[in-house]
């Protein structure tokens, strides 16, 4: 499944070339509920940390909203498609808001056991 990571990174990496629009306002709290209910966490982790075998990291450098929406609606490679029948536009915005709200990683200096 490592190829999934590679392809998604490629997809996400291509995002800046797309026409970008501002992310619609979303409800991060509701987005968190949707993120869990819609199973995003299964592959990307509960705080978007990603996993090498299942799905790329989503935070803190989250891709622009247009690329995010494109990936959900018509994903590259094996990510499941989330069409409007499953996730509405407003729900999409809420999920995006949640991902954007997640704090960054712990500070390396605070985690001595990794050294």
């Amino acid at each position, binding site marked *: 499944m490592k190829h999934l990571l590679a392809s998604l990174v490629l997809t996400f990496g291509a995002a800046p070339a797309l026409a970008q629009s501002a992310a619609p306002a979303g409800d991060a709290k509701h987005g968190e509920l949707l993120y869990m209910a819609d199973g995003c966490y299964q592959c990307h982790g509960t705080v978007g*940390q990603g996993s090498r*075998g*299942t799905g790329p990291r989503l935070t803190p450098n989250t891709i622009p909203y247009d690329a995010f929406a494109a990936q959900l609606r018509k994903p590259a*490679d094996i990510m499941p498609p989330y069409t409007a029948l*499953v996730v509405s536009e407003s729900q999409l915005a809420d999920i995006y808001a949640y991902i954007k709200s997640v704090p960054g990683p712990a500070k390396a200096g605070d985690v001595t056991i*990794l050294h």
Partner: protein
Amino acid sequence: MSRGKKDPALSRRGLLRGAGVAGAAVIGAPLAAEAQTPGQPDGPPRPIGPVTPAPNPRMESGTPPEMPILQGTAGSDYMVDVIQSLGITQIAANPGTSFRGLHESLINYSTLDWHTCTHEEASVAMAHGYAKIEGKPMLVLAHGTVGLQHASMAIYNAWCDRVPVYIMAGNTVDAPKRGSNAVWAHSVQDAGALVRDFIKWDDSPASLTHFGESAVRAYKIGMTPPMAPTLIIIDSEMQDGPVPENPKLEIPKLSRIAPVSGDQNALAEVAKLLVNAENPVIVADRNTRTQAGIDRLVELAETLHVPVCDMGSRMNFPTRHKYNMSERSRGLVAQADVILGLELLDFYNATHSFHDNIESWSDSRIKKDAKLISISSADLFNHANYQDFMRYQPVDLAIPADSEASLPYLTEALRKLIDPGMKAKFEARGEKIASDHAKALTAARADALYAWDASPVATGRLCAEIYEAIRSEDWSLASTTGNFLSAWPQRLWDMSKHYHNTGAAGGSGIGYCAPASAGAAAANKKHGRITVSINPDGDMMYSPGVLWTAANSKLPILYVMHNNRAYHQEIMGIQRIANRRQRGIDRTHIGVTLRDPFIDYATMAKGLGVASFGPITDPRELGPILKKAVEIVKKGEPCLVDVVTQGR
């Protein structure tokens, strides 16, 4: 664990005393005369074993028939002598009537250690994990019917993983000797048929002499690379009955086994390809059987200054070695002009990307003119039915040989070809690889910082905390599945010994980790080594009874539950299918989650006699509890820590 009697000479029989050493020894005759025999030597052939009296009026009237009730010799004692001559010291078994004779001999007439198992799948998986540490098999006993049926999944794992498991299965061949309906239901014409597709050899001996030869042959075949499980069917009458008078039983000598090394000319050709390559890469999967395998691969890598990608089915290459580039294997393989696969069974997957979409397909990721070389003992033996030989990958040169045995010759061939100019060039390449290795390690540590404080506990933090708790001990990671843990142990832990990581199940049959790590602990124990199992929850539920075995055998093992409360791989698969069909995932938890209720592994472990902690959901609690758990394990007991984790 129960230990057999220390001094068989003190047993009431001492039948084959001193015959347990390898070598031909004539046995059986001196005490044979003590046997109570129903027939005379020159009379009609006497029955082998005890005779079940036929119903008769005298018995019903209370007058017992004149039948033997004591025996002075036992066929199964001879079996024990043969088994001990092979150097086998441990047994895993769930009891069964069809091997009661051998069972009795093993507990009263041998010095073997006995692990009482609650399921034959656990028995075989224990032997699987044991062999990967010890380098030799454990004996597994099972019924030839229901026992082998229980055991079959674990046998398949060992077969796929190229690991020897030495199995003896009981059967009652002679129909009139099957006294009850249970014995009939547990008897079979051809017991080996059930598992013959995924064992290397089996036999059903018809006499004790036959048993001796086949038992030694099975061991030899199983231990010859490619190693694999073997099976001997042991007739219950032959076990239970006395040793016949006439045969002079011998214990056949076990040959020393020299694993086949690659053809010298072919290895010289490989050396030529490697020294002339710009971007060679070594991909090792089951290269290493012993510490020598690691040392030899290090020597090869340092001679050629070449990156090594460890696919993880064994501990092939030190994780902190400057040429370990497992983190970037896909990219290196894609750029390579020569790819050397060492016991790389799935060469196709190493060189291709598979796309699991509505229409699945694969595409090559390697250069068109890349040269592919395979050194693998897997080419020496295969079966057809089960498809564990993987998709066919054409290679430029396939050397059917044991790669661990072949490496010294390859390194020697390289040394002959490398001139000072090449050496300088290769060393410069090595510096670049070392720099990339250091970057990969830094990146892995940075990656682990994400979700560090998350609850459920992130797998990166889980593995970092476990390592912190054991790093100052002599430790052995005996079971984990790399994908299930995002390869965190390989990324974060300093692994350099062959017992530091024994790899996964082989056949991806779930239910391996818990018992296999118990088996590894049975091998690690005498070294004072702590065994660690980062145990998926779904895996644990296949045979949780092994926790009781660990307690009963006093195995020093730390079980840390990777409790994501689901069959996580399958959750993702069902989600993909549901979303393809635009049905949403509201119901995709059905059949793939372990919730409602959550399983309380700590309570389960306590009930099975294992000290435990958890469930832990706050990652800050993890470090202190793991330290306490390690202290318990250091005292020679198992301990389980239940950690509620992220999916991967």
